[in-house]
């Protein structure tokens, strides 16, 4: 019965072909280091899901940000769990993405024809770091405030255009409600959408080109 229905559906949807290309592709004999990209992908999905849940209670305003997070931690059932996963997942994701980059570097997986996979990977690394930077301000506690003060001050040391960049990041000359709101917006809309799009390209390339072999002694 099921198989008949599945056949009926697939005659119309043609999903089997997509399934075969995505999951039944041929891969060389590889090792555990090759799992780090999938681990990064999994962590990204986790961050998206827990982030959406946090946005149910979090309010990006200087008057409410800190208190709303206290409420998530102490008032909401399992709030500590959702925030904890998002908090540690953020750190883990940076680590995993970075080691994934190291593995593709040391295995020379970035060479022809995978240059674009590498380039999209660079975008993903930068966007992931951007997520960490913008997310760090959101609790609006002392650490967040001063970390962002320093973080937005750093590009200010660039000659000529530096101070301008700082005030674009802050949305003014000082850290304010404007800074918090724009960091929030970048954290939940701009960067996740960039990451989603670029992961799509990254994965397309991996599926199209197949993954590389572990280089041998002669390579």
């Amino acid at each position, binding site marked *: 019965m099921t198989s008949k229905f599945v056949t009926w559906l697939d005659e119309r949807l043609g999903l089997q072909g997509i399934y075969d290309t995505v999951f039944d592709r041929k891969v060389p004999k590889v090792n555990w280091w090759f799992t780090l990209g999938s681990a990064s992908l999994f962590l990204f999905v986790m961050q998206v899901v827990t982030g959406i849940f946090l946005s149910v209670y979090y309010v990006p305003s200087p008057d409410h940000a800190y208190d709303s997070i206290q409420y998530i931690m102490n008032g909401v059932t399992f709030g500590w*769990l959702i925030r904890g996963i998002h908090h540690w997942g953020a750190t883990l994701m940076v680590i995993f993405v970075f080691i994934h980059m190291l593995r593709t570097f040391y295995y020379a997986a970035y060479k022809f024809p995978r240059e674009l996979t590498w380039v999209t990977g660079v975008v993903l690394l930068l966007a992931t770091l951007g997520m960490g930077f913008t997310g760090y301000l959101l609790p609006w506690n002392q650490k967040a405030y001063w970390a962002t003060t320093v973080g937005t001050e750093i590009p200010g040391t660039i000659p000529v255009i530096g101070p301008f960049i700082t005030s674009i990041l802050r949305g003014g000359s000082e850290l304010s409600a404007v800074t918090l709101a724009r960091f929030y917006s970048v954290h939940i809309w701009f960067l996740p959408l960039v990451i989603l799009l670029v992961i799509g390209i990254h994965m397309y390339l991996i599926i199209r080109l197949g993954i590389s072999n572990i280089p041998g002694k002669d390579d």
Partner: protein
Amino acid sequence: MAESAEVSRRDFVTVVVGAVGAVIGLCVGIPAVAYLVSPALKVQKGEDWVSCGPLENYPIGVPTLFTFTRTQVNGWERTTISYGVYILRGEGEQILALNNMCTHLSCRVSWKEDAQDYVCPCHDGHFSIDGKVVSGPPPRPLDPYQTKVENGELFIFLQEG
């Protein structure tokens, strides 16, 4: 179906994957649902006698609005909730105190002197001076408060939550 009493490898894997999947599903699902519904489970209940001031402030025979506010903690914030009660004084100690919240969908009614009705602006519900439904969608009369008078001061009994 296979005659052999032994469980086939395929069936075993199917069952194990299903069971492990169900456990993981519960571990993720229960916290997720609890997280979302949690504020709804923390309804604050309370009851109190609220003073409406000296009884003699209220004219006899004319519904007079008394308003007051109470604060509640919702999430990380104190929320101010406004209440309105129409006090109608009869002869002697006779008092009728009506909640001005419409029994249809909770808009606030007001006393219209010319119509001699309480009128709700939202869907044109009308109530008589003693709170009975005259016309419109409200399903039941306006809710009365229990009242008491102590040393000439009027109190109503408020139940929240």
